[in-house]
């Protein structure tokens, strides 16, 4: 391959979102349709021009979830006649009258064109709410033109929580907000909270809309991803649930600090020093075992597998792994992480996965390489890869140990990379 930059030669302000972009065949990252389908008993309505509809409709069709979405196509006639509001209203009414079972919640996605034509969709929702008082209408946005200020993904993670209403708060229950995957034994946070007798609510665990609404009774919201920050902040302001953001967990001190902060906020004991010591020892042993197995075999990491790939790269480097390359969109880590890598791993190859030159980059790798993430696998053309998006169900020491298991498995066994990376929304419950 060619076209990378050594991290030592880069500046922190480097930003891969430079405009003209390439789309690789690796499609495992969830899009807004996948996220929206997490809401039980909901229906999604996309209001967009044909070119925008195509992707979301076929995402839905591939999930086998066509009964959960409908569309209203924006046509030239709507632009010329200025009747976007009427079209939106009448379309939604038609859809609701045609569905066999009324949804409890309707997500209406407007698009870039609505912003530019100053469509008054809030007025339409106001009317719809009066006409259908038993349905929660939520304004959602598929408007990538706004991505520099309000990208669609974090916006949707917030919007789907807008239906949560303030209920009497239960100090023994807490929400995980903004997750795509159900967490369990691979998450320190989940296991600790449950062991302390807390009830953990999460959209990924909800089987009914009523159960989802009960999340309004939790005393706090824990978010694990930056993309969930808007939701956490919004809920704190709107229904006064404490927001407890935790950070990417490839730094032991950060894990401990975040666990402690969450436990203090919830008035429960944090993991004690002995437990932390044991967790660290087990994690170090797991890392040492896998590192010895790989025995210098290079590793490549990408941003689709973990939120902060450079932070994870630093952790791997400090545990003896030979990390050769990292595929990113832009820097999501603190400057300290970047600078530490510049010193400790100056030859790390950093690839901008969206850059136009990636289309003609020579895919492949001389000798064996193990990839963590679909894009790293695709660009290195390796079947040895960890097939995970957005950290999967992993958090904390348990999460790191799970990642080590997956890395070991990836090193030892091949997967059908070509087939797997092209599946949209990897791990989606409907997939």
């Amino acid at each position, binding site marked *: 391959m060619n076209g990378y930059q050594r991290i030592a030669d880069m500046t922190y302000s480097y930003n891969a*979102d*430079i*405009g*003209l*972009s*390439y*789309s690789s*065949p690796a*499609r495992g990252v969830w899009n807004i349709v996948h996220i929206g389908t997490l809401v039980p008993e909901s229906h999604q309505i996309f209001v967009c*021009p*044909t*070119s*925008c*509809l*195509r*992707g979301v*409709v*076929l995402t839905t*069709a*591939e999930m086998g979830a*066509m*009964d959960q979405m*409908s*569309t*209203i*196509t*924006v*046509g*030239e006639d*709507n*632009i010329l006649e200025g009747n976007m509001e009427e*079209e939106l209203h*009448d*379309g939604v009414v*038609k*859809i609701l009258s*045609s*569905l066999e079972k009324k949804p409890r919640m309707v997500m209406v996605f407007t*698009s*870039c*064109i609505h*912003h*530019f*034509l100053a469509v008054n969709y809030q007025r339409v929702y106001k009317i719809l709410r009066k006409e259908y008082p038993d349905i929660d209408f939520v304004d959602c946005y*598929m*408007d*990538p*033109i*706004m*991505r*520099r*200020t309000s990208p669609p993904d974090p916006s949707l993670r917030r919007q789907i929580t807008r239906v949560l209403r303030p209920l009497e708060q239960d100090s023994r229950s807490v929400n995980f907000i903004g997750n795509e995957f159900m967490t369990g034994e691979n998450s320190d946070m989940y296991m600790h909270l449950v062991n302390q007798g807390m009830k953990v609510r999460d959209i990924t665990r909800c089987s009914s809309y009523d159960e989802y609404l009960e999340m309004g009774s939790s005393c706090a919201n824990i978010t694990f991803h930056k993309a969930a920050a808007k939701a956490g902040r919004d809920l704190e302001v709107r229904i006064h649930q404490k927001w407890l953001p935790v950070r990417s967990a490839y730094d032991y001190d950060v894990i401990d600090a975040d666990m402690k902060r969450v436990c203090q906020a919830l008035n429960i004991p944090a993991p004690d020093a002995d437990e932390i010591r044991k967790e660290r020892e087990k994690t170090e042993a797991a890392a040492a075992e896998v590192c010895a197995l790989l025995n210098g075999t290079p590793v490549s990491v990408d941003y689709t597998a973990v939120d902060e790939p450079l932070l994870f790269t630093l952790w791997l480097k400090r545990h003896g792994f030979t990390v050769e390359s990292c595929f990113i969109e832009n820097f999501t880590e603190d400057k300290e992480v970047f600078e530490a890598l510049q010193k400790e791993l100056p030859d790390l190859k950093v690839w901008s996965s969206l850059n*136009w*030159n990636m*289309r*003609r980059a020579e895919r492949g790798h001389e000798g064996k390489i193990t990839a963590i993430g679909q894009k790293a696998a695709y660009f290195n053309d390796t079947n040895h890869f960890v097939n995970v998006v957005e950290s999967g169900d992993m958090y904390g020491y348990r999460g790191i140990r799970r990642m080590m298991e997956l890395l070991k498995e990836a090193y030892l066994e091949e997967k059908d990379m*070509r087939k797997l990376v*092209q599946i*949209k929304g990897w791990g989606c419950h409907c997939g």
Partner: protein
Amino acid sequence: MKNWHTHVFTSTYTADVSGVCSMLYELGGMTVLHDPSGCNSTYTTHDEPRWYDSDSLMFISGLDEMTAVLGDDNVLIQDVVKAAADLKPRFITLCGASIPHIIAFDYRGAAKLIEKETGIPVLPVPTDGLRSYVSGCSLAMKAWIRRFGDRKAEKIKGRINLLGVTPIDFSNDENVNAMRRAMEDAGFSVRVFAMGESFEALTEVYAAECNVVVSSAGRGPAQYLWKTAGIPYVEGLPSGEIMVKRIADAIRKGGCTSVCQNYESDGKILVIGEEIFACTMASLVHGTPLWPDVDEGLDEDTLMEKMEQADIVIGDPLFQYGRKGNAKFVPFPHEGYSGRIFRDDIPVFTGIDFDIERFIRGKL
């Protein structure tokens, strides 16, 4: 009340921007889709079976709010100039979706500026993201012919162009090869626009004695070539022995005609799909064709009504959602509708060996 905009149950045909990308995919150019995001991955994921195994160039411009509000076309122009310097495409195509359309992005002006800076030919294809792929394919092909077609090419006896050939309608090389072989066996020398042909081979477009419109995407360029060079065209899909003969006879007879419009329907068989496909198949089985409008797609109420009235429905499997009535359904996947979902089930439906009646019997 009928309302073509609203689709409660059914999918959507792919858009004009995908048509542009698909039509020019194999010709060595670089297609830039002026849009914020999404149209590129939609195309590469759902509409383009060649994406994984080739390195053809297609990018999104990444238009953002401020650039659109300020009308700062220089962002796009400079990005394209830089990318062209790195990748050295043979030509560049500019197309776009709805935001460039409503801010009146000047495709021709931007194309001229890019061409001036790079020295590379630039084709402006002013799509708007509101119309179907048929429009995009057609505009792209016309723009390419206008720019690169050799007007002085000498006529070649028996030469025909098959117009409107992309994976969106034909999916795979087998369909293209079968169609080509059928027409070659019928005594013609064939150029296929635009799968499996070189850039140079297609510059001979004006050498043809006749054009064959094998999908509705080919109608626009066929009319253009008729108007500008007097090359007649025949509409029809070379599918099955009968249709291949009809097309060959029509070519030899001369003039512009369609060989797939003479369906005598008894209303029992409904064929849903791309226009030339649907009409061809309907004419062979005495069925009724139903195809999407370029601007409005398929009105879902009309679609449901017609499916309910038929005894047998031939169409893409995604049309089954929300379907009422007892019609037997014959799944015939169409990449332009369901994308890659049923790609492996798309039959070789061109060439003399395909028999639609046998196909239907095999599925019932």
